[in-house]
């Protein structure tokens, strides 16, 4: 690891000010991506600004039709939250199968979506549920937030403060775990909104990161059941392919995981 200056601000404003002062600053959330690449000397930030102790970034609120999770809330706290379990149990479930206990104690929702790993779980939940990402500057719809592999709408120095999820009528998540990394080899989040709309998002599938799956949405809109997808064919065009899964295999997983997510959603 190269030398760096570590900061632990206590407010968002302080964090933003620190970020501006550094010549090449990086925000630190759970650190599961940044720290390993720093250890491998693939990243050399001048300043590392730890967002993990900013009180205003931690907490979960459920009010009526909205579940709000603040950005530095850990997976463990999300998984344990009674509010999450009551309003959107699919998010509690997603978090419970995310990584392992050590990962869940440190990783945060904000860190996950800011990094936008193409195999991360939370981007699928945000896109499927039609969540809104709030930053220190603005609000961004999930559909506009994720911009492809490891790329988001965030501007330099912008900090995610919270994510607001509309509480759906039904939602479910299922994934096939990557045999080595335990990220999603492919995961699918399905949502039926209270207005009757259906939104389906897949992670670990597309070469462009998290994606909507219109062919599955159409079928589920007509008939919200796993069986409705039996005859659906998901194209393998543009799908990720590597030693752990061919494009055809991942296309198959999108369908199968969607079916199981619908079953889980009830």
């Amino acid at each position: 690891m190269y030398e760096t200056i570590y900061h632990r601000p206590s407010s968002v404003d302080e964090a933003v000010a620190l970020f501006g002062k550094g010549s090449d600053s990086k925000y630190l959330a759970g650190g599961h991506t940044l720290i390993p690449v720093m250890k491998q000397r693939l990243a050399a930030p001048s300043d590392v600004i730890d967002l993990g102790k900013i009180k205003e970034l931690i907490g979960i609120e459920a009010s009526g039709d909205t579940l709000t999770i603040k950005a530095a809330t850990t997976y463990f706290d999300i998984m344990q939250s009674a509010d999450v379990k009551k309003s959107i149990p699919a998010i509690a479930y997603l978090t419970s199968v995310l990584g392992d206990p050590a990962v869940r104690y440190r990783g945060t929702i904000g860190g996950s979506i800011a990094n936008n790993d193409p195999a991360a779980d939370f981007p699928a939940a945000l896109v499927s549920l039609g969540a809104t990402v709030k930053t220190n500057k603005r609000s961004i719809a999930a559909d506009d937030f994720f911009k492809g592999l490891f790329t988001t709408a965030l501007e330099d120095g912008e900090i995610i403060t919270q994510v607001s999820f509309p509480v759906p009528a039904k939602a479910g998540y299922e994934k096939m775990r990557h045999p080595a990394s335990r990220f999603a080899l492919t995961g699918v989040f399905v949502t039926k909104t209270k207005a009757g709309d259906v939104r389906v998002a897949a992670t670990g599938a597309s070469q462009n990161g998290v994606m909507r799956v219109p062919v599955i949405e159409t079928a589920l809109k007509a008939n919200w059941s796993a069986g409705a997808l039996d005859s659906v064919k998901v194209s393998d065009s543009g799908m990720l392919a590597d030693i752990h899964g061919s494009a055809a295999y991942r296309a198959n997983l999108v369908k199968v995981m969607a079916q199981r997510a619908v079953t889980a959603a009830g």
Partner: protein
Amino acid sequence: MGVEGIGASVVRKEDRRFITGKGRYVDDIKIVGLTHAHFIRSPHAHAKVKSIDTSAAKDMPGVVGILTGQQIVDDKVGNLICGWAITSKDGTGMKMGAWPAMAPETVRFVGQAVAVVIAETKNQAKDAAEAVVVNYEELPAAADIRAAIKQGAPQLHPEAPGNVIYDWTIGDEAATEAAFKAAANVVSLDITNNRLVPNAMEPRAAIGEYNEAEEHFTLYTTSQNPHVARLVLSAFYNIAPEHKLRVVAPDVGGGFGSKIFIYPEEMVALWASKKVGRPVKWTGDRTEAFLTDAHGRDHLTNAELALDANNKITGLRVKTYANLGAYMSLFSSSVPTYLYATLLSGQYNIPNIFAEVISVYTNTTPVDAYRGAGRPEASFVVERLLETAARQLKVDPAELRRKNFITQFPHQTPVIMAYDIGDFGASLDSAMKAIDYAGFPARKAKAKSEGKLRGIGLSCYIEACGIAPSKAVGSLGAGVGLWESAEVRVNPVGTIEILTGSHSHGQGHETTFCQLVAERLGVPISQVQIVHGDTDKVQFGMGTYGSRSAAVGLTAILKAMEKVEAKAKKIAAHALEASESDIVIENGEFKVTGTDKSIALPMVALAAYTAHNLPDGMEPGLKEGAFYDPTNFTFPAGAYICELEVDAATGKTSFVNFVAADDFGRLINPMIVEGQVHGGLAQGIGQALLEGAVYDSSGQLLTASFMDYAMPRADDLPSFKLNHTTTLCPGNPLGVKGCGEAGAIGASAAVINAITDAIGNNKLEMPATPDRVWHAIHG
């Protein structure tokens, strides 16, 4: 058996320090003046090293020295050796290319070191390494066996035309050919045995320390066999003479074979400590472990089985290509030959066997022994063939095996091994009972009705352990004898130290070896200390690998114990004024049988060292040594049965049950044996389902971290049901056979046999990932 004697599941003495983080590993060792080494490694699989410019780096903060491959050559440091000579079928020797510890001219795998930076801190060494400019001229690479043996393939070493190191055969080719001509049925199978990365929990590490005043070197290293390391370093590498070199292997966090070998990094740390005049430490990181620890397996095999009209096996013919990587590692040549093809008879009476093994160079990390070392490859070939034959002949796979089991012992196979004892039917019976084999068809039908694909797979393995009779392995080309040594020191106050040439790096010797003393003398194991891993403390020994420490190492201790006991009895008889033949040892006391007269061990020991009243002519002291050379290999064997379900929609495998019935002979500590079997099964199942080192066509390792190389985790594994059947090994007085590798040897075939049974398609390579299984089902 006492509470701590042979057969007792005594809790491991060493675990307290390990689980409280107080083990002492190489990286924990601090020495005044210590410097830190960072190796500059090739990013290319095959390239000429045109130049190395250290001018900008050498003045950077903290830099103590920068050494290159050319300096290794200039200092006449020897090239790495291979310790087992294999002769090709045409009578020629191995075509071995030179392997300098750092490459002066040509790099042949990604990760091969070309230079080392030594600095006050590791970080300073890394900073300076980035300022060293290495100019490479890339060459075409041969990244796997097929690429290496095809016409016009890039040549790795001028000594090995066509990249072939040897073309070796065993068995009677003509007789086997005749058996196939006369066969009623022939079964053929193409098999890929996947390449594995050992991944011991502790990465390799070394500290070289040179004492100029005494012209003496010390090497602290992560070794399974420190004495062999000293021998090789002094005899072949010209770094330090044997009497001026101490090698210490302290606590070592797992080896699985990968820490048998003497690697370039240890050589360089030791050599560099004299060059820079400071102690030099190198601790590998996980990436270096993936790139430079000797890998395991990597075979391409075609195997054929001939059977007569009664389904009796009449012949086995095998042709294997083995990938040895870019250089010949220390025992690499023996693994796909004498440790592999000599086990191709399996548990079966096969009158004719012929095997040809062609070992080749590729632009990949060197390949050598990894838990099982040749025997998993053999067992996989035989057990996949038997299963395939049963399916082809439409007979029950258990019955086909039983029909062909060897039942008379000793049994001479056509491929050198003479099995001393076993009861293969008993193991199979035990495993079948444990899994309710008879009830499987009903369970499969029920699963099918629920939309699940259920399969069952058998694997009846045999292995050769307790390596090895020195004369026998010498005649086969081994450069060393494979005996073991021991010294038993009874201290003046009666505590006992056992100095052993075996080395524990997870096996639990500090407990099991004490149990032998407890058994013999009746003293608590807390009174016994096992000393190992330091050439200054312990007499020459051969180390731990090949499941040899109980059968060979513990037997050496027993031989030394017998000498100590004999002398102690003489002293006791003298003190008690009794006949030596009337002395018996019970609960730490020497008693005159049939009387109440006794003398406790501490008093005997004290008498030995005060020497005030010893029998006439007796030397003082109570310390004896022994060297034990085994008379034969030992032959652990057993039956594993795996029952699992495959999710046809995803290709994911879920275990229903996994049962083992092993025959390890006498068990010293059943709890430790169970742990060894669990670990071995995890590695065997890991090979079958998860693990696979994959290179791209340019020779880059795609699976160079745990993000892509899938190590088995607890939730990948079933809750094993372990059983034992026992035939005592006649080859050693304890009747032990060895248990360290069995799981890794037998498990893979059981898993693949079960999956292919479930999906009804026999074409499936390891690792059987969900992706591969799904494609096997759906095309």
